[in-house]
């Protein structure tokens, strides 16, 4: 798809550090939480980019920083040709109608004192898109689009179930006809049988309105299902970015390999034969991240260079970005690593032809 190649949003060198202060009278910055520490990536028009990682890896901070809910410490966020970071408040406010967010917690993200109609209609008022009868009509239309009964327009959030509340949040995000929506863990607070309803709704809306999504979640299976491309974060850094198929069939970063192998698959026969890479230890603190590659403390393949030098996030094969020293030192690649990166482990049940051709290409 050629139109997909045009980026809607481009992120360059994005950093978001949160200072930690100490001292009651003289406040002094004593440390920084490096929640996001130098991201470079693009989101194409009309695609869903999935963003995965474990708690504390900076994925939610990334989403919020893209929307300028935090002022980034450094970097550029270029949306439709404009650097959002440099916009003055008025120009940014005007842009906000194009950039919306769906939040994780359908309980905390809806004002309990506002009716559903007021909640969904708020973006219309804020951006002066509609008022009076026209606004009411639009609210009812939005409720229908997301599968809520428009007769409930005067009800309050507590009268709805979790899944229905998430629909309210989605209707609110759609109200200003945005082109880009950050979905921050939109399904993780919902019951299994409801998650599928919301995922299908998000897919339908994307088709209908040509939306571009950044879909943030810790559930890799859900992300794989909904995303065109997937980015993996670890401790404030992006370690890998590729299409869903490539990421699953031939992950190149040792962290991605471990992450994929750790996700249980609901099929006992497959589970019985899968090789699990169990990482040792816990994620280090982002206040004092490890030197060099941030993953080296848990990486089964790390050597001296990984402790000293931070690997570049670069395009290792067309469309497949990765930050790992193993890529440019093939001699150091252990057999276990090579096997997975060449797509001969998890890709078994899939198209063997594609993985074989790719591994051949890699060896050239």
């Amino acid at each position: 798809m050629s139109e997909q190649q045009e980026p809607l949003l481009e992120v360059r060198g994005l950093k978001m550090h949160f200072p930690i202060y100490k001292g009651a009278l003289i406040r002094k910055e004593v440390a920084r939480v490096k929640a996001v520490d130098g991201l470079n990536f693009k989101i194409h028009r009309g695609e869903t980019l999935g963003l995965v990682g474990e708690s504390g890896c900076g994925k939610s901070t990334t989403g919020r920083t893209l929307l300028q809910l935090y002022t980034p410490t450094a970097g550029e966020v270029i949306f439709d040709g404009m650097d959002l970071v440099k916009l003055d408040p008025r120009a940014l406010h005007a842009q906000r109608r194009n950039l919306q967010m769906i939040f994780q917690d359908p309980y905390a993200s809806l004002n309990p004192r506002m009716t559903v109609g007021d909640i969904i209609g708020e973006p219309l008022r804020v951006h002066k898109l509609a008022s009076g009868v026209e606004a009411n009509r639009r609210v009812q239309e939005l409720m229908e689009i997301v599968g809520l009964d428009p007769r409930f327009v005067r009800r309050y959030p507590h009268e709805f179930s979790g899944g229905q509340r998430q629909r309210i949040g989605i209707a609110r995000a759609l109200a200003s006809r945005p082109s880009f929506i950050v979905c921050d863990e939109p399904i993780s607070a919902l019951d299994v049988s409801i998650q599928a309803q919301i995922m299908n709704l998000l897919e339908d809306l994307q088709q209908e309105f040509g939306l571009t999504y950044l879909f943030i979640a810790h559930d890799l299976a859900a992300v794989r299902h909904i995303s065109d491309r997937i980015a993996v974060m670890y401790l404030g850094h992006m370690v890998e970015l590729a299409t869903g198929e490539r990421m699953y069939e031939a992950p190149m970063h040792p962290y991605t390999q471990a992450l994929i192998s750790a996700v249980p698959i609901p099929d006992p026969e497959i589970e019985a034969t899968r090789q699990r890479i169990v990482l040792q230890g816990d994620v280090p603190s982002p206040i004092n991240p490890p030197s060099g590659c941030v993953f080296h403390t848990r990486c089964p393949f790390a050597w001296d260079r990984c402790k000293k030098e931070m690997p570049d996030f670069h395009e290792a094969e067309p469309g497949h970005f990765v930050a790992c020293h193993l890529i440019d030192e093939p001699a150091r690649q252990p057999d276990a690593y090579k096997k997975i990166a060449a797509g001969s482990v998890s890709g078994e049940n899939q198209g063997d032809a594609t993985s074989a051709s790719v591994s051949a290409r890699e060896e050239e």
Partner: protein
Amino acid sequence: MSESSEPLLEIKNLKTHFKTDEGVVRAVDGVSYSVRPGECVGVVGESGSGKSVTQITVLGLIPQPPGIIAGGEILFKGQDLLKLKPREMRKIRGNRISMIWQDPMTSLNPFLKISRQLTEPLMTHQGMGKEEAREKAVEMLTKVGIPAARERFDQYPHQFSGGMRQRVMIAMALLCQPELLIADEPTTALDVTIQAQILELIKDLREDFGTSVIMITHDLGVVAGMADRIIVMYAGRVMEEAPSNALFHKPSHPYTVGLLRSVPRLDKGRAARLIPIPGLPPNVAKPLPGCPFAARCNWAQPKCNEAFPEPVDFGDGHRSYCWRAEEVRAADLGTHADPGHIDAIEAKVKAGESIELQGEVG
């Protein structure tokens, strides 16, 4: 595991209800299942299905009031736990049956050093002296993979990370070498790489100690890799029970089928659209005479709203509580791999036609 071996735990027609302002909530409404020695049983269900309340009842921890044990038996090695005096129950709980809770932060006492929390069960249940208990506890912490266990022994829970705290919980649960370990969503609060560590640990310990495990979870993936048998619960009732393989490959209850089809699978990618279960989970405060799933079920018939189904037995411990279990099983609708085909079957089902598709579906 042969059917003939004597069950370790047998839950028979258990009913745990709660009195609330909105009426009697039938959290557990006639649940029966059993666990054999050395077996790992997975209990799957969504929030409000009664999967946890069943086990809290087994441990005798239901507050009464508002709770009412309205009926049933819980036989642990033939002895009915519901008939025991609190003093007798205390000898079993934490000793012969122990539990790992979902949230390791709230289930460890933040004011007590873990040394105190870990030696207590040994001193209470096994009459060990302080020194002996300390030795045993440190040994167990090492076994569950806490690095430098001796040095960390006198630390407080907040000094451990989430995964480490869950290991402390597991160590505590295993100290007295229980015959039955109940794990209630033991990995839900943890990240996937840590989840993998904890699940491997539970597997290893099961092999080492021969402990039976009841694994309560909402995650079908977790039980697929762990459980020998799986119980599917919905609205306080058992819907289906089966050996793991049979449950995933020959699901015979529309709710099980619905769950399997609505869960995205990492190995399936974008290929197929998910097939959600329509509607919302029921309100257990307003019980219906029939099957609680009927309102959301594509297979429902008038009969389903009149009486709760008798179990249909497919042998090898595979039972489905559905009036149309045979048809569901034959239709073979296990995954969302081929939605077009499924739609066609479902249309037939709705129209009330009979299903004759055996062996036809890939």
